[in-house]
């Protein structure tokens, strides 16, 4: 891959999405978003629910049409879904009649690649996420966290270059969520895919990403692009450091500012918040 394409592996130019719902007024879900992601970077898109970040991600995945603008991945403009992209959705979306292993192999079947060649990869991935004993269990026999682990394996099994994650752990309880974050970081360090991770959790974004993009509701665009300085490999303990909490505080302020603007108030960070941030 040429150097330019590596530096701008994912490239969004003035991307907009407008929903026209019958006669009702048009809703601008995404408004003129531009950013680039270099190859191998983990980027989190952080924003409140309903700010259009999921729509943005689906457009990058080729699952939603753009109203305006241009998305290119690896230098080629997106026209539809690609097999070089792996997607994790909010729910695990496992096929209920297939075992964990067969669910992981589902993309291989769809892509008409030889299943036998990938069976070992699938097994290794499942072992890697701690599901050794659950390969032949059906989804209803697995816990919510286990199902999302299967979904991670399914997104990785066909070795995509880009991993898109749409709040994949938002339905899990806090403890399981922390576990999954650690696991994801661990996996990502091993496979180093370029990753776009959509979340509404500030701590999750800061913990996982190299870079956090803050998206607001009005306007539905990127208002902050922050590089996260923590070295890798990271561990959960960085969450207790002062720097980590400062970054979180800063991001929270940016989100709150846009909230105030939405309500027609002047953006002014609260005193209490400033104290908390230190």
């Amino acid at each position, binding site marked *: 891959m040429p150097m330019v394409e590596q530096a701008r592996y994912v490239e969004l130019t003035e991307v907009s999405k407008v929903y026209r719902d019958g006669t009702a007024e048009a809703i601008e879900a995404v408004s003129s978003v531009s950013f680039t992601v270099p190859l191998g970077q983990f980027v989190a898109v952080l924003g409140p629910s309903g700010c259009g970040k999921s729509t943005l991600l689906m457009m990058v995945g080729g699952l939603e049409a753009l109203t305006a603008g241009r998305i290119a991945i690896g230098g080629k403009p997106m026209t539809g879904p690609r097999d070089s992209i792996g997607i994790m959705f909010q729910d695990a*979306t496992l096929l209920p009649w297939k075992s964990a292993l067969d669910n992981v192999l589902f993309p291989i079947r769809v892509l008409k690649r030889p299943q036998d060649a990938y069976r070992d990869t699938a097994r290794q991935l499942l072992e890697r996420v701690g599901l050794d004993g659950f390969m032949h269990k059906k989804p209803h026999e697995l816990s919510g966290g286990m199902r999302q682990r299967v979904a991670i394996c399914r997104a990785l099994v066909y070795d995509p270059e880009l991993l898109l994650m749409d709040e994949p752990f938002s339905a899990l309880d806090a403890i399981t969520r922390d576990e999954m974050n650690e696991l994801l970081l661990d996996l990502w360090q091993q496979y180093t895919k370029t990753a776009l991770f959509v979340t509404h959790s500030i701590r999750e974004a800061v913990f996982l990403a190299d870079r956090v993009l803050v998206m607001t509701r009005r306007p539905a665009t990127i208002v902050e692009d922050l590089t996260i300085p923590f070295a890798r490999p990271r561990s959960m303990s960085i969450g207790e450091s002062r720097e980590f909490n400062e970054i979180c505080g800063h991001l929270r302020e940016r989100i709150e500012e846009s909230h105030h603007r939405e309500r027609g108030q002047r953006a002014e960070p609260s005193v209490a918040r400033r104290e908390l941030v230190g």
Partner: protein
Amino acid sequence: MTAEYQATSRIAVAPARLPRRAVPASQHLRRLRPVILPVLTGGAVLLVWQLLVAALRIPAVILPPPVEIAQELWRVLPLLLRHAVPTTLDSLMAFFAATALGVGLAITITYSPFLRDMLYPNLVFFQLIPKIALAPLFVVWLGISSESRVAFAAFVSFFPIVISAAVGFANIEASALRLCRSLTASEWQCFLMVRFPFALPAIFSGMKVAMTMAIIGVIIGEFISAKAGLGFYILYASSRMETAVIFAALLVLCIIGVTLFGAVALAEGLVRRVYGRR
């Protein structure tokens, strides 16, 4: 304090004691209740029937006693079985035709919004017409051959299949389809791998209704036009005032109905083993 102590000690002792206790006979009976109770009820009804007919001196032409029906059944059984053959075959043919056409039309409706808007309301409307009233029309159109009866029975049993299959195809989890599309699957792959398996329970519930409807359709057809078949034979026996023979024929018809319905249910069970949610 004492109460608490007692409670804990009771809990600690209970698991050790429970398995040792012999299962009382009443518990066995309760477990067999779903089998014993209906059989006993049926037997009681037959007994009351037998006694009532004797006590009130009801003529056998009006209501023959069960014992006489059994005797008649034994006498005319070879004849009844011969007449059962066309009834069974016609019902099966009608059922398979209805299934193929029904599922086919449901697929068409699923993939063509235009055809869905055009046909679906009319199908629901037709579902409400007492279709049995149309039986004479089939004689006018297709004559008194077996094909005419099969066509009528297929027509009658076709509606439950289309409606339930269409609902099954439409009620698929949107996220599963999105997953499929994200993996660059073709529409046909999505259908085979996701939509069809998801719709199977709905299709089977339609098929079970259709199986009973097909038998009803064939019997109605035989009432009107046939020279053989159980429907014909029931009409023939009624013209000769052989009421016990009518009951005997009904019994054979019942057995055919239960067998064919059971076959569909069995097929459903086999399919569920592969595509079951659990």
